[in-house]
């Protein structure tokens, strides 16, 4: 058997190299997020947001931008035979799940490197909330990546892939979004960041990550079966 770390690095490296070369996912995700912020800015007719409204605008935008990347996550594997190649290789198939989660995490972090500063420029009067926000982003990104990878692998064989991913993913992601917005709300409160129930929401995010990370790892092998 090929050591899992070798296979993981090979698959992740292949995905990132392909994305850097073709830019099929990231620019679309970033453009979507920035455009949505512009729409919110003029649609709400507000130059400053705070609390639950700011948190909701941020996470709704990031979630729908993420769906664009999730939709394309397994397209190369489906259309160019990557699934067969991985099934023929002496590797633990769960490595493919781990590598795809890592690739999606990289996409989400790159998206947030662009989208969060744009959000701050459009809607926040100071950037003091951005540092504690990093922990929320990291935990939410992992949950979104694990759930998104699982759903994307199931939907990729369907011709209605673009429809199936949001239809199945969004209900599953509701608890994650509740926790992410709950943790973000006090950070974006008027008058500066607060930490009311911040730790509780972080724990909920961690629990969600653990559950969906383990579920994905456990069932992914079966999803690749004939």
């Amino acid at each position: 058997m090929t050591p899992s770390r070798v296979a993981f690095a090979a698959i992740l490296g292949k995905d990132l190299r392909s994305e850097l070369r073709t830019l099929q996912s990231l620019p679309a995700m970033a453009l979507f997020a920035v455009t949505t912020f512009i729409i919110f800015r003029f649609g709400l007719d507000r130059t400053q947001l705070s609390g639950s409204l700011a948190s909701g605008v941020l996470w709704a935008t990031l979630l729908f931008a993420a769906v664009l990347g999730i939709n394309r996550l397994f397209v190369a594997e489906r259309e160019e035979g990557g699934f067969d190649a991985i099934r023929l290789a002496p590797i633990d198939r769960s490595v493919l799940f781990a590598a795809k989660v890592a690739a999606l995490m990289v996409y989400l972090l790159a998206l947030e490197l662009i989208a969060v500063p744009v959000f701050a420029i459009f809607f926040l009067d100071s950037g003091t909330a951005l540092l504690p926000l990093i922990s929320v982003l990291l935990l939410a990104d992992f949950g979104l990546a694990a759930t998104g990878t699982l759903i994307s692998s199931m939907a990729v064989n369907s011709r209605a892939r673009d429809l199936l991913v949001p239809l199945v993913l969004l209900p599953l992601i509701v608890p994650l979004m509740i926790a992410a917005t709950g943790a973000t709300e006090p950070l974006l409160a008027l008058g500066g960041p607060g930490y009311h129930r911040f730790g509780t929401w972080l724990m909920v995010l961690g629990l969600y990550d653990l559950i969906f990370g383990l579920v994905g790892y456990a069932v992914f092998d079966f999803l690749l079966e004939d």
Partner: protein
Amino acid sequence: MKPQDTASAGPALRLVGLRRDYGDRTALEGVGLELGAGESLVVLGPNGAGKSTLLRVLATLLRPSGGEVTVLGCSLPREAWKLRGRIGYLGHEPLLYRDLSGRENLRFHARLHNIGTEAAEARITELLAAVGMERRADDRAAELSAGMRQRLAICRCVLHEPELLLLDEPDSNLDLEGRELAHGLIGPVQNRARVVVTHDPDRHLPEADQVLRLGIGEMARLS
């Protein structure tokens, strides 16, 4: 990649009453044969007779619906995991990523098969030279012709020095020169069994130790 002990213990393939269904439709039925190590089996039959399905079952990409299937001493589907890395499969799709170059694709497959970096580079260089692809090796697969992609797919298929080759129309898209070069890599070799699906019996029958004829709605015939 070293052949495992089970390889030399018995026949490369042993099929007894193999059946494969797709829902209500039976694609393969009653296939039985035994192929020794180093022997070649040529599979003939019209379109839709189940030739590619047979190869995908043997490659562990499809589960058999019935019968007994033993490949390199491993009973399928129970011991399919033991076979991974021991089979070279060349299907209708080249299993190459279009946005990576030929060399990058081969490096990727070498890492999946746990071939060390130096050994992989040497093997890739040797294979690319063997199929006349050195000059186009760094072009993206999407920019190559179908014949060049087939040459790369053949390199991928033998990269890890498999004990059993499963070749589905290996000459497709290849010109005469390509066929001759490819034959050097996927032709008969001692201790490496081959199953070749073809529509060109004149070319492959002279090398066959056994011939399996599949027909639509008929029992398979071995000769």
